[in-house]
């Protein structure tokens, strides 16, 4: 089966172009954009790990290593499309328009952290694994019913493929031919469980066969390849050719979250090797160098710019006003029920020191 689903690449890990024809579509500027977004995401990620260590944010979920998959796919969306991320997909949401400030607030346990700027359709990151898949089918079905050509793109991990909602989401999308791209990041692990224990199949892509769904397997660390594959899937979706399942093979370098100790279940030296070999940023750097389009100075410029962006966001986050109590009450229902109103009153009575 694995032979039916070879890991497609446009650019190999040494930066060589494997599909010259397709690369015609991709300007150097576009590639530099991709690099920029990946670098931006990575610097933010590194910063967050530090912030967590310093106790300035809570438990944090790293994505370092997965920037190729997330940025490449996010860039294939257009305005008005819908994104359904998980807790690990901040490189994707950041690229699609979520603000750094909000991402940081997310790790401070703030509701604002899950809300994108007005007009950008990003669902709050799904925590119950795979639950976002049928929702993405529903949001796309809505677009189809409205007669637009907007699509939804939904992220999920290798572990998520085991949940019933993975299956139900794919089935609904295929039955209703919704314009949905199911974008799987196979990073090899669901917390400590390697993909070999998660499933008996060698690929995730082949799971699309059960639904007669377009399905393919790509190198998730080849940002250009990811971009093109998702672009194709999005195009299919827009033009009414239904959903696609994409398995993007990738790797997280770090722990599952800052609360996790990966040395319990794997040899972290593999991550070190991968940093030198399959890294998505390194690959673009090599490609650009091969094209004579790499300027160290440019890199330093964008780095400086990103770092100042991060600093600004950090300041905004740290000076952000404390949450208002009413966030708890005012958004359960459009109008609070008496039960809630009574609880507010009592809450305030106690807070106000009025104890009888």
């Amino acid at each position, binding site marked *: 089966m694995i032979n039916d689903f070879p890991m497609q690449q446009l650019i190999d890990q040494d930066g060589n172009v494997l599909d010259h024809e397709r690369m015609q579509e991709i300007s150097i500027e576009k590639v530099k954009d991709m690099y920029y977004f990946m670098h931006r995401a990575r610097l933010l990620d590194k910063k967050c790990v530090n912030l967590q260590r310093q106790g300035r944010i809570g438990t944090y979920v790293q994505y370092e290593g997965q920037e190729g998959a997330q940025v490449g796919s996010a860039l294939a969306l257009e305005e008005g499309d*819908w994104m359904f991320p998980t807790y690990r997909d901040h490189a994707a949401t950041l690229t699609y328009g979520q603000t750094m400030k909000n991402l940081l607030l997310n790790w401070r346990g703030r*509701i*604002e952290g*899950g*809300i994108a700027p007005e007009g950008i359709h990003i*669902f*709050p990151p799904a*925590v*119950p694994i795979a*639950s976002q*898949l*049928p*929702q*993405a*089918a*529903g*949001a*796309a*079905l*809505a*677009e189809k*019913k*409205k007669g637009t050509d907007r699509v*939804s793109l939904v992220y999920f991990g290798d572990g998520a493929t085991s949940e*019933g*909602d993975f299956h*139900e*989401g794919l*089935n*609904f999308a295929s*039955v209703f031919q919704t314009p949905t791209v199911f974008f799987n990041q196979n990073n090899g692990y669901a917390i400590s469980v390697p993909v070999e224990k998660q499933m008996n199949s060698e690929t995730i892509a082949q799971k699309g066969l059960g639904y007669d769904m377009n399905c393919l397997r790509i190198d998730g660390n080849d940002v250009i390849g990811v971009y093109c594959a998702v672009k194709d899937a999005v195009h299919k979706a827009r033009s009414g050719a239904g959903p696609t399942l994409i398995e993007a093979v990738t790797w997280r370098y770090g722990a599952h979250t800052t609360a996790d100790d990966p040395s319990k279940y794997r040899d972290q030296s593999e991550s070190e090797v991968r940093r030198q070999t399959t890294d998505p940023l390194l690959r673009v750097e090599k490609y650009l160098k091969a094209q004579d389009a790499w300027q160290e100075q440019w890199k330093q410029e964008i780095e400086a710019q990103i770092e100042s962006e991060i600093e600004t966001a950090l300041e905004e986050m740290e000076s952000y006003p404390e949450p208002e109590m009413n*966030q708890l009450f005012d*958004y*359960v*229902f*459009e109008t609070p*029920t*008496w*039960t809630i109103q009574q609880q507010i009153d009592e809450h305030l009575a106690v807070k106000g020191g009025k104890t009888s």
Partner: protein
Amino acid sequence: MSVAVETKKLTMIQGINDALSTALNEDERTLILGEDVGVNGGVFRATEGLQEKYGSGRVIDTPLAESGIMGTSIGLAANGFRPIAEMQFLGFVYPAFNQIMTHATRLRQRTLGRYTSPLVIRAPYGAGVRAPEIHSDSVEALFTHMPGIKVVVPSNAYDAKGLLLESIADPDPVIFLEPMRCYRSSKTEVPEEKYKIELGKAATLKEGEDVSIFTWGAMTIETMKAVEQLEAEKEISCEVIDLRTLYPLDRDAIAASVQKTTRAVVVQEAPLTGGVSSEVLSVIQDTSFLYLRSPVKQVGGLDVPVPVYSLENEYLPSVDKIKYAVEQTVSF
């Protein structure tokens, strides 16, 4: 001034069908999704004729997957539609529990109002119609304890139409539970035109002096029978209140009635422990402690899985049990 309102005598299932048709007709965003709701018109005929009338794009036969139905409905609701999702029986809502509990009910709060899930979950429920296993669960309490969803239970056609139209108009999730025993047990006059009944308001089925009986759904039938006998045989004057909405409960109506009669009995079909009846007791305790002359008696189903049908009459609260509880309460 009097206005002539056209009415027709309908069973509850007809009232529901009428409400659904009204909603589909009036608002393009209304959709119906579920198993067998389309061509078949639903296993109880709740959606009879609706697909023919409004098309298969709006009355949608889905694959057999409740989590998929709910998840898809949430996506539709967040993106501008007003889905009405049918669970074929309430006993089959469990696979959809995760979608309801972690998403439908939380989307407004998780996004501070950016996205909402204005959807209705409809489900036939309860025992007493000799249905197969698992078809007869009455688990309304699972939803009254779930923040972010309202729980509505009609007991007749008039209420069903008005409450369902209000539920569909509600900007937040509502679970609308339809006691199967009430589907065809009686007919009531139902206005042909659109009307709504506010959620959270109980209805007084009968006024009385000695004891308040709170109930809802199919138990209104048993309760009214018991009351008739109690009044005739024992001269106990009973007030009967159909709660109609279980979350939020009608606190004022409960308090007013108990404060008048000074005694209360709650009748529910679900297993006694942890049911909505305990919550009615809470409201009474909170609002009317000093008025109570005797402990509030709860009559409920047994703390056992709803059995297959040969045993369901033993399982269900009987007229005798209700009478027994009322007598105990009055003679305490």
